[in-house]
């Protein structure tokens, strides 16, 4: 069996957060992680990202962007609310 290097293993470790890997993939990932301190850290960083967002119920994620309603949308919504009376 071909041994994974770090660039093979990184996408797999990410996918493992999202769905159950095939047995073979899980095995290759586990073998690599035992040997590779950097990939262990990388894996923990991905879990850290997930965890820190969960801890804030995702509220921080929406606040993490700076989108604002366009002036046209603002005018249109205001107008329609006024029309409703």
């Amino acid at each position, binding site marked *: 069996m071909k041994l994974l290097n770090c660039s093979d293993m*990184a996408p797999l470790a990410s*996918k493992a957060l*999202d769905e159950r890997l095939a047995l073979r993939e899980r095995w290759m990932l586990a073998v690599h992680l035992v040997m590779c301190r950097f990939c262990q850290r990388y894996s923990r960083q991905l879990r850290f990202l*997930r965890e820190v967002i969960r801890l804030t119920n*995702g509220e921080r994620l929406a606040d993490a962007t700076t989108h604002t309603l366009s002036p046209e*949308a603002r005018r249109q919504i205001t107008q329609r609310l006024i029309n409703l009376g």
Partner: protein
Amino acid sequence: MERTDHELTQASDPASWLDRHGDALFRFAMLRVGDRNLAEELVQETYLAAWQAKDRYAGQSSERTWLVGILKHKVADSRRRDRARPAADSLESDEDADDLFDERGRWKYPPGDWGDSPAAFAENQEFWSVFSRCFEQLPGRLRLAFALKEDEGLDGETIRKVVGVATTNHVWVILYRARQALRRCLEVHWFAEDR
């Protein structure tokens, strides 16, 4: 009938009601649909529905929570109603992973030790302001897919439809790239600095 304060503030002036919550609702919608026009439409639908239901709003939750609740339904409706976005066959170039590995597949910039307590950062304003800058730098579809996964916890097939890619494999690739870009950015701008 006596009106509550909440009803009074809403009813008095649509423009200031929009000022109070409009942008926050819009950001919430953008995070979930990734498209300006659709997000603005959903905010409008939310306000119109809220306006018509305002007599039933008894102030048991905050005005914001009430509006966000309505918006969530509007987002769910639009996902059921609208056809999936046309699927792109390939990923866009700005969605490419950075050059993180050398020619032998080893980390160019070895990941650092972030410790084991995300809880220590969850309430840290400085951390979130760095996070925001990193998150905003992500290409649109990467940001959208990441939010759908990590905030809403949607499955691969649903994310595939919302972001408009051909296969769930594309979804895993997009999520992978989003995570790499975010973690690398946080590493450089937050964790690498002495604190």
